């Protein structure tokens, strides 16, 4: 990392952990916490989708893993009585394993074929949640308690959320912290050999195989990391909404995750974060326009694509002219 990057990271951390809470406290817009917490969580799921883009696959199935992760967390809390904080990694691991099973056959598909299958996958997961006994069908799982205390050797690491005076703030900090960790991991992947190999896969799979890259393994690996992100985002969401239904994550959500990546820019690690912020916040801010909300939102979206088809962050690399 060079100086400029370190400064950037520090500024970002100060912004999300200090400036945002301060701004919200002084403006009194406490509802923004919910919005920003959602943005943080959705951008984790989007980061996963972005990673599958990075190996050259269009993933419109992240909603399936977010839903699966949510159910894993909900079932573990309600039926096993597990502490919420332990269910997060378990939800991620469950989704990663599930994605290996699903990914081995479908990752052989390319282009729109893969895209369409993943789109269908979201629908499969919703229908499975409706049909399986453990997920309690359309009624879903409700009245999930708030996260409990997490302590190590009697030392409280995370307090019990139900005792807090402001759980909204606590959720915000939790979500943003997980987001920061996820993006740090993503950044490191992209800038290490693993990322370089993913890029080689994205650009030419045959050539990649000819230089000895185990392409099938690498694809499944990237896809399972992607699904891990989807799973933990889903699990966190359950804690906030204290409920989960088969319709909690649908095809529209999967499409949004993909849009977030496109909008931010597929060539930039932080593209999905920015894309999520713009799309989600934009939607929220337009709430005041009432029945015209969707019309204005979609028109702006189309205008943005026409102006910057390679993502918002591509304005910064305008100078590097392509052939």
């Amino acid at each position, binding site marked *: 990392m060079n100086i400029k990057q370190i400064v950037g990271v520090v500024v970002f951390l100060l912004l999300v952990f200090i400036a945002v809470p301060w701004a919200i406290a002084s403006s009194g817009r406490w509802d923004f916490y919910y919005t920003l917490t959602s943005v943080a969580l959705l951008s984790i799921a989007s980061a996963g989708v972005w990673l599958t883009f990075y190996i050259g696959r269009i993933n419109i199935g992240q909603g399936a893993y977010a839903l699966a992760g949510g159910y894993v967390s909900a079932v573990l809390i309600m039926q096993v009585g597990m502490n919420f904080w332990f269910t997060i990694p378990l939800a991620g691991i469950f989704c990663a394993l599930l994605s290996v099973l699903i990914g081995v056959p479908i990752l052989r598909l390319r282009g729109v074929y893969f895209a369409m299958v993943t789109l269908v996958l979201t629908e499969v997961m919703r229908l499975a949640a409706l049909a399986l006994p453990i997920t309690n069908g359309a009624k879903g799982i409700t009245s999930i308690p708030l996260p409990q205390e997490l302590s190590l050797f009697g030392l409280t690491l995370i307090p019990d959320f139900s005792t807090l005076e402001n759980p909204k703030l606590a959720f915000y900090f939790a979500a943003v912290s997980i987001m920061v960790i996820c993006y740090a991991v993503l950044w490191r992947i992209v800038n290490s050999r693993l990322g*370089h190999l993913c890029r080689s896969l994205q650009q*030419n799979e*045959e050539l990649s*195989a000819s*230089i000895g890259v185990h392409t099938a393994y690498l694809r499944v690996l990237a896809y399972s990391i992607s699904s891990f992100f989807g799973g933990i985002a889903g699990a966190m969401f359950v804690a906030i909404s204290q409920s989960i239904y088969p319709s909690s994550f649908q095809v529209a959500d999967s499409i949004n995750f993909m849009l977030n990546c496109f909008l931010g820019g597929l060539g930039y690690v932080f593209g999905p974060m920015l894309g999520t912020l713009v799309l989600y916040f934009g939607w929220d801010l337009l709430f005041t326009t009432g029945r015209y909300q969707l019309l204005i939102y979609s028109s702006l979206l189309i205008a943005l694509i026409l102006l910057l088809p390679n993502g918002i962050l591509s304005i910064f690399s305008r100078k590097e002219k392509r052939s």
Partner: protein
Amino acid sequence: MSTILEVDGITKKYGGLVAVNNVSFDVTEGEILSVIGPNGAGKSTLFKLISSFVRATSGTVNFKGDRISNLTPHTVARKGVVRTFQETTIFRSMTVRENVVVSHHLRSKASLLGFFFGSNTARADEEAFGRSADEIIEFLGLESISNEVASNLPQGHLRALGMAIGLATDPAILLLDEPFAGMNHDETMRMVNLVRSLRDERGITVLLVEHDMPAVMKISDRIVVINFGEKIAEGSPAEIQSNEKVIEAYLGSDDDEIGL
């Protein structure tokens, strides 16, 4: 000198069509062997069979005694049999140097997790790859364009870059797919010298598939000729040039780029 690659009765059928029929030949370590034949003779399929990019219907390919046919391409590459591609198969949006560095994958000692956490082995690997990449780039005379994005390069440089990618894997035998296609006389001569130096300076055995006859005659130690999927001749350039069957095969075809 010992046999490094052994093609034994390899056959490929597509439905009822026989693309390659029972072809056998050996490649000796340290030689430059060319497979030639008129257009549509099955050269390209044979090439893909050897590099395991397509599965053989029957027959085997052995490398140093191990069977390498019907494996996956990356396992074959791992054993040291590496192919290049025709024309523009490169990592388009990477720079020349990034193309070569990433292709050092097979030489890495650290695991992917090691690379993720930046272990000492991983850092040593990265440094070694960088040095080796610079050396390969210099060897192929690409220093001046080392930081250009590959998609912006002209045809001739792309061919050299393809070769650099192949070299980065540290192959025992390099399979070149029509290295002279679409080149003028000067470019061809430069490429001939380059291929020679692969063998002379780096000790790499070269198997190439080509239909540019003059270049093949100049460069090869031995030549295998195939037509309609079958081997019709094998021998030194002089022997091939005077072989009745070969002349007939080439005269019989519509392809008049014989140059004999």
